[in-house]
């Protein structure tokens, strides 16, 4: 990050508990504009919760979240206004099953940004076209493959022109042969300079796309650094142990 540039996202001492269990135990993380940060770690390490607190879906117990210089965890901040700038794509797609692909994509631009129908549809169609989905515009989500649904979900998030995109295990619910089509879309977004925070189990992908990789365990970031260093010579013994298990499972 250049000196004086406002970070896209800053987390300071973020703590979240579900009942008695503390899921995030003090997270500090800064993401620069146009940076791609991958969060790796075992299931239950807090990756998803971390993403969900950035767009205020999960309330914080302590700490601050600052997006583009604005503290969004401050009292009285309009959460709807914040969420417009932050896109999130979920593992389970979460498309709206009673709406066509086109309506899924145009709903928020029309209702939240106040775009008129023609403008919203034009934007949606050009996004669909770009990701090879234009023939699916009038389908209902149930009729699409998992990979197509996830690409539609990404398009739906992009239609809000977010400054920051959060991706939560977006390929984990997909059949192996459908993973590539979704990863290619994300790669394309990274090449265009989209700022992204990505929770993933795809280590090869993380290594390939990330500017920085953070290893989470038990609600803490244990190690972070450029992917080449993290994946080849991790310093923390627990990172080493996690990666050796991944390698043993043939996933790197």
């Amino acid at each position, binding site marked *: 990050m250049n000196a004086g540039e406002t970070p896209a996202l800053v987390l300071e001492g973020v703590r979240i508990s579900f009942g008695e269990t503390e899921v995030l135990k003090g997270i500090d993380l800064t993401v620069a504009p146009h940076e791609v940060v991958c969060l790796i770690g075992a299931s239950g390490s807090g990756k998803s919760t971390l993403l969900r607190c950035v767009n205020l879906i999960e309330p914080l117990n302590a700490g601050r979240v600052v997006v583009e210089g604005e503290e969004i965890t401050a009292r009285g901040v309009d959460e*709807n*206004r914040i969420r*417009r700038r932050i896109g999130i794509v979920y593992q389970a797609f979460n498309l*709206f099953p*009673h709406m066509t692909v086109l309506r899924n994509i145009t709903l928020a631009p029309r*209702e939240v940004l106040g775009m008129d129908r023609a403008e919203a549809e034009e934007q949606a169609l050009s996004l669909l076209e770009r990701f090879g989905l234009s023939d699916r515009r*009038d*389908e209902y989500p*149930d009729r699409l493959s998992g990979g197509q649904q996830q690409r539609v979900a990404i398009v739906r998030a992009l239609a809000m022109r977010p400054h920051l995109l959060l991706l939560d295990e977006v390929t984990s619910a997909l059949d192996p042969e459908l993973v590539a089509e979704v990863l290619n879309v994300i790669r394309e977004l990274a090449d265009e300079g989209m700022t992204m925070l990505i929770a993933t189990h795809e280590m090869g992908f993380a290594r390939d796309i990330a500017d920085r990789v953070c290893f989470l365990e038990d609600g803490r970031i244990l190690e972070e650094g450029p992917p080449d260093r993290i994946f080849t010579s991790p310093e923390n013994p627990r990172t080493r142990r996690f990666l050796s298990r991944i390698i043993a499972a043939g996933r790197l």
Partner: protein
Amino acid sequence: MLGGRAVLVSSASTVLFFAVIAVVVALAPGSELVAERFFSPFHLWQSLVGTESEPGILKAFLLNVYMFAISEVLILILALIIAVVRQIPGPVFFPFRMVAVAYTDLFRGVPLILILYIIGFGVPGLGLTFFSYLSDITYGIIALVLVYSAYVAEVYRAGIESVHESQNAAARSLGLSRWQSLRFVILPQAVRRVIPPLLNDFIGLQKDTALVSVLGSIEAARAAQIYGASQFNYASYVVAAALFILITIPLARFTDRLIARDKRRREAGALA
């Protein structure tokens, strides 16, 4: 699919079943009397169209349909409001939620006929400027709406709760407000899911319009009773019953079609 032998067995079983019933009915003492008192073609027709002294059931039945149609619309609206209020989160809305819960508890718990008496005889007794001088039918509709809204609100609530929380999360994270998420994402899915149970309640409502007769309105059941009492023939009850059945069957088929259409639409399009 049934095999050849199974078809044979099921046909034989069906014929035998109805033959036994027919024989039992025909041999029963008083079966001729039943035919005359309940199924006399003359009385069936005359009670349907009415005489100079007795009201026709068909015309009276239009009153049931009228009360049903008006109250159904009002119930759909009032019940939705109650269901939505009941699930608004936050401490500020606690009294509103409490009122919604109390409403449902109260009007589901009290028999409709008591509510009819309380509204139909009680409110006129208050001597209020406007509310005490309405027609019996209006009081009947008010009572039906009050009671059935409590049931239908619970049906809506079940529908709302059946929509997975992740749908709301997806809507909110796109920047939609709580209200927009409810309106565009949650409620449309919830309502689709509860159409069959809603229909069930509306069939009940259609039949319960007959209870408004306790306030003095001459609707189909009351007209049938008047005819039966003066002609000593109960074909009028059969006629009224048939009319109620005739209107619920199309309602049921209509709902089946709505469900099928929704299913078809979601599965339509280019079949990959």
